[in-house]
C-alpha cells in the first residue's frame, strides 16, 4: 500500500541510495528512492520531526568493525551475546556458540514479516549487512548488543528470531554508544509458533547525541505469548515502531515501555497491536518521565478486525512532566470492527501528585527523596512483570541509574 506522496520527504535519499550496498537490494533501493522517508505530515510520524536527521547524511563503516572503548566493553552483559559494532558482527566481543551462533545471509531475500518496507525500514532493507537468524531452544537467554562508535556513523542491523512450538526463551537487545551523533536503523523480526513464550527486552542507553530508529515486528501464534519491554534512556532521538500481530487464537501480548527523557531527548513509541483472530489478549503500558526540554510521543493503535470476537485489550499511557518545558503527546487509538470485545484505554499526563508527595513527607521523607521514590515507582510499575534474572536486574538498574543521575 503506497502512501500519499505529499507526506513524504526525499531529503538524503540520493545519498543513502548511492552508498555501496550488498547484491540483490535493487528492489528495496527503488522503494526507498520512490517513497523516501516520512515527512512532517505523515500521520505515523506526526509529532516526530525527521528533517534534521535526514539532512545529516550518516555513513556506514565498511569492512571490519571499529574499535570499542574499554569503558563500553566493561558494560557488555555476561552470558551468550552477539555483538554488533556499527552494524557489523564483532567476533572478538561476541560469545555465542552452538545454535545461538546463526547469522543472517546478506544475499537472502527479506523475511516475510516485514512485507513492503518504507522509510527507515526501507533504508534498513537496502543497507543491512549483518544480524542473527536463529531458532531458539528451551530456556535460551540471548543478548544482542549493538554498539555505535559515533560521529556520523550509520549502523544498520537486522535480526530474525523464531521460537518453535512450546519453546520459552528470553532475548535482550542492548543499544550502547559513544562518540556523539550517529544513526542506528535496526529491524528485529520475531516469529512465535503455537504456545511459545518469548520475553523480549530492549534497553537503550546510547550516546546523548545519537538517533535510534528501531522496528520490531512480531507474529504471535495460537496460545503463544510475547512479553515485550523497553527502556529508552539518553539518546537524542529514539523511535520504536513496535507492531504485533496476534495471528492465532488465544495469543497474548504485553508491551511495556518506559521513556526517560532529559535535555532535548525525544522518545517516540509507536505501537500497533493487530487482533486478527478471535480470543486474543493484549496489554499496553507505556510511561514517560520527562525533565528539561524532553518530549515523549506515544501512539498506541489497537485494531480489532472483523470477526475477532472475544478480544480483550487494555492500553495505558502515563506521562510525568517534571519541568515546564517537557512535552507529552499521546494518541491512544482504537479501530474496532467486531462487537464482542473488551477494549479500554487510559492516558494521563501530569506532574507528581501532591497528595502522594504530602503522604511521603509526613512520613519523614524530604521532598527530593519523596519525588525520587514516586518517580521510581512510576517507572518500575511497568517493568514489574519481568522474569527474574538479567532481564529484571538490568532493566531496573538502568532506570535507577537514570533517576539518580538526573
Amino acid at each position, binding site marked *: 500500500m503506497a502512501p500519499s506522496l505529499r507526506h513524504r520527504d526525499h531529503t538524503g535519499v540520493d545519498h543513502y541510495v548511492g552508498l555501496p550496498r550488498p547484491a540483490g537490494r535493487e528492489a528495496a533501493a527503488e522503494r526507498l528512492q520512490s517513497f523516501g522517508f516520512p515527512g512532517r505530515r505523515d500521520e505515523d510520524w506526526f509529532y516526530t520531526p525527521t528533517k534534521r536527521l535526514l539532512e545529516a547524511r550518516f555513513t556506514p563503516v565498511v569492512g571490519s568493525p571499529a574499535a570499542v572503548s574499554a569503558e563500553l566493553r566493561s558494560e557488555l552483559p555476561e552470558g551468550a551475546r552477539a555483538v554488533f559494532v556499527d552494524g557489523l558482527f564483532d567476533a572478538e566481543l561476541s560469545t555465542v556458540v552452538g545454535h545461538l551462533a546463526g547469522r543472517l545471509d546478506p544475499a537472502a531475500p527479506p523475511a516475510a514479516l516485514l512485507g513492503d518496507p518504507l522509510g527507515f525500514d526501507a533504508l534498513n532493507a537496502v543497507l543491512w549487512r549483518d544480524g542473527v537468524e536463529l531458532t531458539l531452544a528451551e530456556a535460551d537467554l540471548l543478548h544482542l548488543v549493538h554498539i555505535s562508535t559515533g560521529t556520523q556513523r550509520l549502523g544498520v542491523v537486522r535480526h530474525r528470531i523464531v521460537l518453535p512450538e512450546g519453546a520459552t526463551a528470553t532475548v535482550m537487545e542492548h543499544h550502547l554508544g559513544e562518540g556523539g551523533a550517529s544513526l542506528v536503523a535496526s529491524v528485529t523480526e520475531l516469529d512465535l509458533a503455537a504456545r511459545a513464550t518469548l520475553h523480549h527486552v530492549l534497553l537503550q542507553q546510547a550516546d546523548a547525541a545519537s538517533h535510534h530508529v528501531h522496528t520490531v515486528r512480531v507474529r504471535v501464534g495460537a496460545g503463544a505469548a510475547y512479553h515485550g519491554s523497553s527502556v529508552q534512556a539518553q539518546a537524542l532521538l529514539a523511535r520504536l515502531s513496535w507492531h504485533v500481530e496476534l495471528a492465532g487464537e488465544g495469543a497474548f501480548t504485553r508491551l511495556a515501555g518506559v521513556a526517560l527523557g532529559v535535555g532535548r531527548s525525544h522518545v517516540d513509541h509507536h505501537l500497533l497491536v493487530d487482533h486478527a483472530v478471535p480470543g486474543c489478549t493484549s496489554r499496553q503500558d507505556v510511561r514517560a518521565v520527562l525533565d528539561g526540554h524532553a518530549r515523549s510521543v506515544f501512539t498506541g493503535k489497537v485494531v480489532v478486525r472483523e*470477526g475477532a470476537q472475544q478480544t480483550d485489550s487494555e492500553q495505558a499511557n502515563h506521562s510525568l512532566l517534571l519541568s515546564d518545558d517537557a512535552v507529552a503527546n499521546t494518541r491512544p487509538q482504537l479501530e474496532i470492527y467486531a462487537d464482542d470485545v473488551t477494549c479500554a484505554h487510559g492516558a494521563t499526563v501530569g506532574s507528581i501528585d501532591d497528595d502522594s508527595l504530602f503522604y511521603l513527607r509526613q512520613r519523614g521523607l524530604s521532598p527530593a527523596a519523596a519525588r525520587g521514590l514516586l518517580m521510581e515507582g512510576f517507572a518500575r510499575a511497568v517493568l514489574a512483570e519481568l522474569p527474574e534474572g538479567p532481564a529484571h536486574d538490568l532493566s531496573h538498574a538502568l532506570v535507577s541509574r537514570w533517576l539518580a543521575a538526573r
Partner: protein
Amino acid sequence: MDEAQKIVAERGEYKYGFVSDIQSDTLPPGLDESVVRFISGKKNEPEWLLQWRLKAFAAWQKMEEPDWPHVDYPPLDYQAISYWSAPKRDEDKPQSLDEVDPEILATFEKLGIPMEERAALAGVAVDVVLDSVSVRTTFKDKLKEAGVIFMSFGEAVHEHPELVKKYLGSVVPPGDNYFTALNSAVFSDGSFVFVPAGVRCPMELSTYFRINEANTGQFERTLIICEERAQVSYLEGCTAPIRKESQLHAAVVELVALEDAYIKYSTVQNWYPGDKDGNGGIYNFVTKRGKCAGARSRISWTQVETGSAVTWKYPSCILQGDDSVGEFYSVALTNNRQQADTGTKMIHIGRNTTSTIISKGISAGHGQQSYRGLVQVNKGAKGARNYTQCDSLLIGDQCGAHTFPYVDVRNGQATVEHEASTSRIGEDQLFYLRQRGLSEEDAVSMIVNGFCKDVFKELPMEFAVEARKLLEVSLEGAVG
C-alpha cells in the same frame, strides 16, 4: 444474525420525510465569483461584507478538500449545487405569524411544532430558517425587553453592523479549513444572538432547519455573543426531507463568551441519513467553535446526532480566559451505512482552565464511527485540567467504532486524564432483561439510555425527551 441485530433490521420509515411545495427563487447550479456577488446583493449587504465574502472565496479556490477523515464518500461536485434558494414571498419579511406563508405554517405542523401553542407554553422563541430565509421570531418583543438580540444573521448585518463586523470570523477565520472558506463565501443566513452584560436570557433560544430544494447547499452562519456575566442557552434541532441526491450542509457556528459569561449550545440532529444502502442523505460538514475569551467564562456543547449520511464535525473550545471552562457532551449514532468522523478540540491557553469531554458513540448496522479529539495544553496554560471519557457501544458485528484522540501537553503543570472503553449489547444482557419482562425494544432502549445517561442529563429538558425518543426511533430494528 443474532438476536441483538434483529431489532436493528428494519429501520422505520423516515418520519420527517416530505417536501414542502413552496415556490422558491432558485439559482442555477454552479459557483463562481458572480454567485457570491449575487447572494450578497440579494441580501443587500454592505460593501465590507461583500469584500469579506470575496476574500473567502478566493481562499477557497486555492484550497483542497481534506482527505484524512476516516470516512468514504463519492467526491462532491461543487459546481452541481445551487447556492441560493428562498421562498417566493420574502421581500418584506412577515411581521407576525399571521403574515407567514400558510404553506410554511403547514410545514411546521407536519414537523410537529404547533408554533403558537408550543412556543407559547414553553416560552421558546423560534427562528425558522427555511431554505436560506428567516422567518421573524415570535417572541422578539420579550427578548427585546431583556435586551437580548435574537434575529436572523441577515437582519443583524443591517441592524447591528458594528457587532457583526467586530465578531464575525473572530473565532473561525474563513481560511480555517476548506468548508469554512466555502461557507464564508456563500453563507445564506443563520442566527445572530447578542446578550448584553449581566443579562440572563429569559428563555431558551432555538432554531429549526430544513433543507428543501434538491442540490441546495445549506450554508448557515451563526454568531452568538455573550458579554460579561451574560448567559444564554441555544438549541439547534434539524430535520430534512428524503432526497435522491446527497445534500451538502456546511455550516459555521461561532460563539464568544466574555468574562463570567456562559453559553450553552445544544443540538439534536436528525437529518436524512441515506437509505439502508447508503444512498442519498445529507453530508454534514460543520465547523463549530467557541472562544472563552474572558476569565471564568464557560461554553458547553451538547449534542445528540443520529442523522446525516456523512458527518465531519468537531465543536471546539478555545480556552483563552483564565479559569475558563469548556465542555463537550455528545451522543452520536451511526446505523445502516452512516459514517461519522467527529469529536472535539479543547485548546488550553489561559491559566487554570478546565475541559471535560464525554463522548458516547453508538454504532449499529454497517455504521462506521470515529471519535477524533484533540486536547492541547499550551506552554502558558499552567494548571490546565482535562478529563475525557469516550465510550463506544457496538450493536452487531458489522459496524465499527474507532477512537483517535490526540493529547498534546506542553507544560508540567497540567493534569490530563483520558479514558475510553468499548462495549456491546450482548445476547445475555437482552435475555436477562427479557426474562424480567421487558420487550426486546425496551431492553435495547434501557441499555442504550444507561449508556448515554451522562450526556442526556446535560441536555435542556425538552431536548432530552426528544433526544431519547429520537434514539429509540433510530435504533428501531437495529438489534437482530
